[in-house]
């Protein structure tokens, strides 16, 4: 008789098609209702923080791209910003604009990948291809600009490695002209779809209180009614000179997280447009050539730099210790999103797992580091 009321323990991951990497969730199921959830992380731990300690500042730079592989520019910017502050390096205006341009394009690429895989988790296969089609155009631009599709190693201390050629600027302006129509296409196929809405509306509600307690940041926090965007609240680079909107929503469910991200696509396009018009007319240097990155020697000092990455606040703390960092600490948004997962999943259905987990936009290499 007791067997009848026993719950079933099911192990989702670490090798599972929709845990986006190697997250392992130990779920306790009662029928299809999730009674408890225990995330197990660490399958992708590469010791990225430890690696810094026996490398010079420049040698560590290519590694940081691998922390969040979908937002490589954000990682390298956070790290470069730290070193620039510690070594008191000036960055030319044009380089700042190029950095913003790259980061916003990267944000679009990252959100597109999120949108595609999120829809795939919900069982719709077509949006994935549409999103990848457009993401591919961004990756082509990045490849032409930096030589790499994902691990760019483009930002460096004092600016960026190469100047941005005019044909790439043309490519980008064509892209931002086409993109709004593509986003409309996604919205037509997704936002108005009753099945999508019924699977996301009021699923995985992240209350404002919970979001703040678990220090959720980024689109997930903004979907819960806290209008906090580091680009607005502590404008770094040239964000204070740019005109853009930040969206927020109050319901905090999977659907509002989707809406916030779709809005961010639009606002990122707007930022890219402004950057392009500045870069076109600028005669600045793209790199502070007085910097000798190989010889960099910084006395004991500490600095934390924060970036609004696609997955929330990403901050890098560097404690300098002479020729190499004494300690580097990364704070990444996904780590906190995984922590709140058990809270959101209780009494949800197994089918909701994918809608909830997918909507949080967790990237596992960023969690495990």
């Amino acid at each position, binding site marked *: 008789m007791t067997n009848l009321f026993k719950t079933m323990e099911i192990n989702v991951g670490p090798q599972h*098609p929709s845990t986006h990497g190697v997250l392992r969730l130990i779920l306790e199921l009662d029928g299809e209702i999730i009674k408890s959830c225990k995330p197990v992380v660490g399958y992708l731990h590469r010791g990225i923080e430890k690696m810094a300690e026996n490398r010079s500042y420049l040698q560590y730079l290519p590694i940081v791209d691998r922390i969040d592989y979908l937002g490589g520019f954000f990682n390298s910017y956070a790290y470069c910003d730290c070193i620039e502050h510690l070594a008191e390096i000036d960055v030319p205006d044009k380089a700042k604009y190029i950095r913003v341009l790259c980061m916003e394009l990267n944000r679009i690429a990252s959100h597109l990948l999120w949108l595609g895989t999120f829809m795939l988790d919900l*069982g719709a*296969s077509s949006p994935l291809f549409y999103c990848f089609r457009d993401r591919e155009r961004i990756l082509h631009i990045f490849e032409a600009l930096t030589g790499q599709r994902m691990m760019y190693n483009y930002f460096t201390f004092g600016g960026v490695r190469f100047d941005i050629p005019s044909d790439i600027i043309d490519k980008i302006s064509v892209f931002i002209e086409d993109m709004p129509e593509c986003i409309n296409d996604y919205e037509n196929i997704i936002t108005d779809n009753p099945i999508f809405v019924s*699977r996301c509306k009021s699923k995985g509600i992240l209350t404002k209180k919970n979001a703040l307690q678990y220090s959720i940041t980024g689109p997930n926090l903004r979907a819960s009614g806290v209008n906090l965007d580091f680009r607005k609240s502590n404008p770094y680079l040239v964000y204070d000179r740019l005109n853009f909107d930040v969206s927020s929503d109050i319901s905090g469910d999977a659907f509002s997280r989707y809406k916030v991200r779709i809005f961010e696509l639009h606002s990122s396009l707007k930022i890219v447009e402004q950057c392009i018009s500045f870069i076109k007319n600028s005669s600045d240097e793209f790199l502070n050539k007085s910097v000798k990155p190989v010889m960099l020697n910084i006395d004991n000092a500490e600095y934390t730099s924060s970036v609004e990455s696609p997955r929330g606040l990403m901050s890098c703390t560097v404690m300098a210790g002479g020729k190499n960092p004494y300690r580097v600490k990364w704070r990444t948004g996904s780590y906190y999103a995984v922590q709140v997962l058990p809270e959101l999943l209780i009494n949800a259905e197994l089918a909701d797992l994918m809608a909830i987990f997918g909507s949080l936009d967790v990237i596992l290499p960023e969690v495990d580091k």
Partner: protein
Amino acid sequence: MNYLLSIFIDFFANFGIPKEVVYIIFPIIPFCIVAAALILVVLVLVLVERKILALFTQRKGPNRVGFCGILQTVADAVKLLCKENIEPNVTDRILFSLAPIIAFVPVMVCWGIIPFSSEFDFISISVSSLLFAVIAVIPVIGVILAGYSSNNKYSLIGSVRSAVQVISYELPIMFVILSVSILASSLNIKDIILSQTSMYQVCGWYIFPCFLGFVILFVSSLAELNRCPFDLPEAESELVAGYNTEYSGMRFALFFLGEYAMLFVSSAFITALFFGGFLSPFGFYISEKIFNNNVLAQIGIYFEQAFWFFIKSFLIVFLIMWVRAVLPRLKSSDLLKFSWRILLPLSILNFIYICLFKYIVMIGGLK
């Protein structure tokens, strides 16, 4: 069928083979035709699906094996046949091997029930539409057995979902079949098709009086076929591959084959009920006009009828694939709500409406 049989008897009588032997041998021939046609259709269908999905997502689809990739499915099939049959350690071995067979064989029977032309109905009984509906459920037993016997939690959840799905979608299907058979005053699929003949050609099809019924049957068939948006039992993002997670090689191929064959058979069934089955949409057959010879004309008509049947069925298949390209997956609780709160009441309403319609038509002496 009798006409064909008599041709065969005459044909074999030329070689001195007695009538009784032909009676015994005769069923083997249609069976071979049915089996061969089914395998062929599945091979085409898998490729067509991949090509159509590719079209919807602006890709090329398979384009390496053979001309424009037409041999892709053959290559896949050969690969599956050559693969090792991996079996998990702790399974119910008998059921584990039996499940794919149970999932596949009934599809063959269903395929035999469908008349492709006015003579090719291999299993001809008076209640063939009901027989179809009953046999079409049996593959689900295979699915449930597969999930139960693989000793895998994902498979088990998938198969339970499948059972839930079938229970909730059988009733609407039955109501639709009943309402169509009331329109045709027959439960035999061939009679249903023939009663859709009309002097206004296409206007005689039952899609016109019974459009609601078509929608209900279409949606329910999607659920019965485990097709998107009702592909819960094998939701790959939640349950890895659902009930067939543990299957590989030939056993997996059987599930796969059964699924695609059932996709086509169900489309054929919908065609028969609502789109005039093998009837030509223009009301005449070309063979009638070009062949003077009576037998040749007759055989030409059979082939033309089969042609129309396949064309119409493929259009339905296209519709199903279109749905797959666009929609995300429903949740099982939403599916139950949809079935019991919307589909079932609608199908009962449709049934009542069709009864009234038939009554008025009979009183008015229309048609």
